[in-house]
């Protein structure tokens, strides 16, 4: 079994209104030195051994559905897990 952690964030060039609101809220709470806040999505996929090429499969899933590549970037980490 594999656990795949997928992170989707708005591209650097795309203004992130939620991130900006949170950055301002942190400043309101007195936290200094915060240059930027970006908000994204975190997804965990659990895949079994029937998936042969994990990288190809995850890339395809990300590009077709999990991220909108017009405005979002994605990255992922694959972790092998032993079934209980």
């Amino acid at each position, binding site marked *: 079994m594999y656990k795949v952690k997928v992170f989707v964030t*708005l591209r650097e060039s*795309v*203004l992130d*209104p*939620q991130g900006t*609101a949170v950055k301002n809220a942190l400043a309101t709470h007195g936290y200094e030195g915060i240059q930027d806040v970006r908000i994204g*999505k975190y997804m965990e996929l659990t895949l079994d051994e029937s998936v042969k090429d994990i990288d190809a499969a995850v890339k395809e899933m990300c590009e077709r*559905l*999990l991220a*909108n590549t*017009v*405005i979002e970037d994605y990255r992922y980490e694959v972790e092998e897990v032993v079934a209980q």
Partner: protein
Amino acid sequence: MKFAVIVFPGSNCDIDMYHAAKDELGEEAKYVWHDAESLEGYDAVLLPGGFSYGDYLRSGAIAQFSNVMKEVVKAAEAGKPVLGVCNGFQILLEAGLLPGAMRRNDSLKFICKQVELKVENNETMFSAGYEKGEVITIPVAHGEGNYYCDEETLARLKANNQIVFTYHGENPNGSLENIAGIINESGNVLGMMPHPERAVDELLGGADGLKLFKSIVKQWREANAVNA
């Protein structure tokens, strides 16, 4: 003329779309469920607003893979008029029938109010009933209507005159270049955030949206009279 009103789980402006086509235009209209296998026999497709599939993941992201969307793509390729409003616009973007993507409103607030639109291009089958530069009042109701595309796409939209409606005066959501509605290169797929189907009768607070629906019918009749 026969309109298909596509209904996804979570659509909530489908009845307004149906009312516009059936009661205000006096044309044929049918609700078509998201898993329908065919759109044969329909002359135009209406994708209503709402929250298809709960807007999980992203607005319109899941709806793009529903069964009926394959048929919507075919109808679009066949040159039939396809109108997507609000969530319908988001679905057209996700499905790649129109370029660009939607971000959350820059205010982060859901907005629901009347806005003024400027008709930038009145040479489309959807906007021929308006004057170029005409300012009309149409309601908006959305949380993610902040249209975005890259510079290259924007240049292409401008070069091909694909920006049909822009916000006039105040931009309610922060969209790029005040864009409120765009059309595809072939001129038969229009996506817009404001709701023309909610402005088809003075009883609803305005009738500026009715001309859009009337334009579709007029253009269709003229095209079919020529073909006949």
